[in-house]
C-alpha cells in the first residue's frame, strides 16, 4: 500500500496506526516559529470506534489502510455470520459479530447498508440513520391511558428493544433513529 505523509493528512483519509485501520478526523499543523513542526491528529480507530489523539513529527508518514465503504444488501444471519451481497455484482460477504456489533439490531433483511470493507472483509456496518422495523412483541396498550410521554418497551422483529408510546401494538411498523435508538413515529411503509 501507499504511504501518506503528514502534509497529505486530511479528514476521511484511511491510514494504519498501531496495526489498526483508522480514519483521520482532524489534522492540525502546529509549529512554534523557531521550533519543531508537529501534526496533531485525531483518528478514529475503525475497529473499535475509539478516537485517538496522536502527534506526529511533520514529514512522518503512515501506511494507507485498504479500507473502502460499499453499499451492500443485508441477506440473513446464520447464527454465526451476517451475510451481505453486492446488488450489482452479486458478490457475497460474511461479517463476524464484532463487525456488526451494536448495529445488528437495526439490520432488516433486504435493506441496503453501508459496509466498511478492510482487506476485502466487512470491518464495520453503518445502517441508515432512520429505519422502519416491525414490532414483534409489546404489552397490550391500556385503553383510555393517554398520559403524555408515558412509554413501554417494545421488541422489534430484528431483536432491538426500544421505548414506544402506549398505543403501539404488535405488527405496527415504526420509524426509528438508529443513532439514538429513539422512536420517531409509526410508518405506513
Amino acid at each position, binding site marked *: 500500500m501507499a504511504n501518506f505523509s503528514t*502534509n497529505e493528512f486530511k479528514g476521511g483519509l484511511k491510514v494504519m496506526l498501531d496495526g489498526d485501520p483508522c480514519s483521520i478526523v482532524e489534522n*492540525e*499543523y*502546529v*509549529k*512554534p*516559529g*523557531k*521550533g*519543531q*513542526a*508537529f501534526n*496533531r491528529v485525531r483518528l478514529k480507530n475503525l475497529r473499535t470506534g475509539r478516537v*485517538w*489523539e*496522536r*502527534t*506526529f*513529527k*511533520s*514529514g512522518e508518514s503512515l501506511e494507507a489502510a485498504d479500507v473502502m465503504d460499499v453499499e451492500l444488501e443485508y441477506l440473513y444471519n446464520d447464527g454465526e455470520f451476517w451475510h451481505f451481497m453486492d446488488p450489482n455484482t452479486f458478490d457475497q460477504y460474511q461479517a463476524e459479530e464484532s463487525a456488526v456489533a451494536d448495529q445488528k439490531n437495526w439490520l432488516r433483511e433486504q435493506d441496503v447498508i453501508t459496509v466498511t470493507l478492510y482487506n476485502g472483509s466487512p470491518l464495520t456496518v453503518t445502517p441508515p440513520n432512520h429505519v422502519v422495523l416491525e414490532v414483534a412483541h409489546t404489552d397490550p396498550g391500556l385503553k383510555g391511558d393517554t398520559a403524555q410521554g408515558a412509554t413501554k418497551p417494545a421488541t422489534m422483529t430484528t431483536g432491538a428493544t426500544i421505548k414506544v408510546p402506549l398505543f403501539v401494538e404488535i405488527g405496527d411498523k415504526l420509524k426509528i433513529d438508529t443513532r439514538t435508538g429513539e422512536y420517531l413515529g409509526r410508518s405506513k411503509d
Partner: protein
Amino acid sequence: MVSWRPTASLQSLQQRAKILADIRQFLAKRGILEIEVPLLSAAGGTDLNIELLKIEGEDRWLASSPEFPLKRLVAAGYGDVYALQKVFRKGESGRRHNSEFTMLEWYRVGFDEFQLMDEVEALCQAVFNMPAATQVSYRKLFIDSVNLDPFTINDTELAAVGAGLSGLDPTALARDGWLDVIFSHAIEPELDAPVFIFDFPASQSALAKITNRDYGQVAQRFELVYQGVELANGYFELTDGEEQRQRFERELALRAHQKKAVVAMDEHLIAALNSAMPSCAGVAMGVDRICMLAAATQTLSEVISFDDNNA
C-alpha cells in the same frame, strides 16, 4: 471542484487594509522608515526548523524573513527601519499557517529586548485594541504551567513528559524538540491573555544575544502569545559577526547531517555585523495572525485573499 472565490470576505479584507495602514502610521510616527528589501537572494537563513523555497532554475531562494537585508541597512547607519511584506516557508500550511504570509519586521537602534517589547505592545494596542500584556520568563512559565524547570530537568524526565503529552516515542526528539512539544501542546494553547515570554534557553537563541542568569545561559529573545497564538518573535540582536558565522556553520552541519536542504551562508550579513553594527533590537510579527485575532476568526484563510489551497 475549482474554488475560484476568495477565502476571505470583503469585510475582512477591508479590515485588513485598515490594519496595514494603521501599522504604517504607527511606525511612521515613531520615525521608523519603511524599506522594501529583496525577496529573492543568493543566500538565506540556516534555521534548522525553517525550510526555504528555491526558485527552480535560478540560484535564488525566496526570503523566509526580511531580517538579513534589514540588518545590513542598520549596519550601514540607516537607523530604524522596517519591512512589511510577504515571506515564504516551505511546507508550513494549516489553520494558523500559510506557506506565504505577510511579515512585519522592524529594528530599533539602541533598544534592548525589554524596550522593544513595550513598543510591540503599544503597536498591538494601537492596531487591534489588544489588552495590556504581562511579561514572564520562559523558565517561570514552564514552572507555573507544567511544574518543571526547563533548565534543570534531565533529558530522560523531559522526554517522558513530552512523550506523555504527544504519544511520540521517547527517543523521537532531542531536548529542544521535547521543550517544543510541551510548549505547543500544554502551554501555548492555555495562554489566553497577551503575554511576552522572554529569556529562552540559549540553545534556542537563533540570532539573539546570549547572556547569563543565575540558573544558566539564556537567549535575549522574546515571543508574544495572545489567545494561544504566537504573534511576534524578537531579539536583542547578536552583533558579533564571528559568533554569527559559528552559529551558521553549526546549523549548516546539522542540516547536512539531517539531510536537509543546505543554503549558502549569508556572507553579506556577517560582513555587515563585523563592520559597524550598532546595538539594536528587532522583532518579526505575523500580520495575518494579527488580522485573524482582530477579526475573531479561527483560521488564517479567512483573512488572506487566497490561501495555500486555492492560490
